[in-house]
């Protein structure tokens, strides 16, 4: 058994932020991916999009400065940076669906080795379904990246041969950033981009349960 240290959520977010090109238009999904905003290198100018009609979204306001007409997709108060703009929902989703966003970062329940995404429903009987903008983002951005834990609490891999949860979109995920490694999803299956120090390739393949090309 080798010894290695898992990446923290912030370390994963930092890893993702380092891959976002200067000048990119980016949508960060609700949950973990919002952490990425805290790690954009200062030298880079990245324009954040919020599906409810904001480009140039800034960080949360100081306490007492909240304006409830200025919220993000997670319905939390945000701010607008100089150069920011507001627009209606059809224009906002045209940005997403029309291939205008360079990158979107989403959370996931499961990703298949060829990039199928399941992130909107566990399909549990009796659960009330809700999809929001997940399907639009997944198919529309130039690159769809996933930020998630590789392993469930039970140690099962969330990267799978074929998703068992209901699909959000087919073959849409380009990269998966996790606590142990970063993967590329290709039509031929998984390819390794990087992994934490001390974790062997065979051991990683065993954890994922899938072949991983170098």
């Amino acid at each position: 058994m080798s010894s290695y240290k898992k990446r923290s959520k912030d370390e994963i977010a930092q890893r993702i932020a380092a891959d976002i090109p200067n000048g990119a238009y980016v949508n960060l999904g609700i949950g973990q991916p919002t952490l990425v905003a805290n790690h954009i290198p200062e030298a880079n100018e990245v324009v954040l999009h919020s599906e409810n009609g904001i480009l140039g979204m800034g960080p949360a306001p100081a306490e007492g400065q909240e304006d409830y007409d200025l919220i993000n997709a997670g319905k939390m108060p945000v701010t607008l940076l100089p150069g920011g703009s507001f627009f209606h929902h059809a224009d906002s989703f045209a940005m997403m669906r029309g291939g205008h966003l360079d990158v979107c970062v989403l959370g996931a329940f499961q990703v298949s080795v060829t990039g199928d995404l399941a992130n909107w429903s566990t399909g549990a009987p009796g659960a009330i379904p809700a999809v929001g903008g997940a399907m639009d983002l997944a198919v529309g951005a130039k690159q769809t990246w996933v930020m998630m834990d590789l392993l469930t609490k039970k140690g099962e891999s969330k990267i799978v041969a074929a998703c068992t949860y209901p699909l959000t979109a087919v073959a849409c995920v380009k990269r998966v950033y996790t606590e142990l490694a970063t993967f590329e999803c290709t039509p031929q299956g998984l390819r390794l981009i990087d992994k934490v120090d001390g974790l062997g390739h065979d051991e990683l393949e065993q954890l994922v349960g899938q072949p991983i090309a170098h």
Partner: protein
Amino acid sequence: MIDKIAASVADALADVKDGSTVLIGGFGTAGIPGELIDGLIEQGAKDLTLVNNNAGNGDTGLAALLKTGRVRKIICSFPRQADSHVFDELYRSGKIELELVPQGNLAERLRAAGAGVGAFFTPTGFGTELAKNADGSAKETRQINGRQYVLEYPIQGDVALVKAERGDRWGNLTYRMAARNFGPVMAMAARQTIASVHEIVPLGEFDPEAVVTPGIFVSKVVQVARVATQAGGFKDAA
């Protein structure tokens, strides 16, 4: 003379009929026409189909309208929320029909209705459970230039309830920040659009370059009080 200004919310909503499809703007705390929703409850129209991004929070606004039992069906993208207990109960007991629509399809289907588009192909939802009709049959799909698409139809409203910021007697509207959200597309997509505004301005005062919804899409404008909350927001309206 054209004068779309209604004297009261009740006057503005007087023509809403039973069986109407009602488009209601808003996303989160922003852009929800709370006064118009309360007015619709008061007005009493029933057998309604509602279109909104969500399905109500807590016990006020949209949730209160659902609770009256006058809503037959809701078309939305995200009904499940921490405090959506009114919808949850109606849904679980089979008292309301849900059509779950990806948010971008919701916006584009409204835009299509407003623009006279008969139907459109979109990649959103292809290969998923939402590429099915209510009866479980598959929606029509087509491969175009090597990509797979699903055929989606417009959502035409009978009435749209929209929260804007300022309006004039021709029905021209401006909005405030992210409260714009579904307002402009819903205003286009309904046979009758009723807008609440916080300020009515004299005709000619708007900078024509800055009008967001031109008056042709608006039937009535009614002024409502600004709900004061922290830093000028509208938290109570949620």
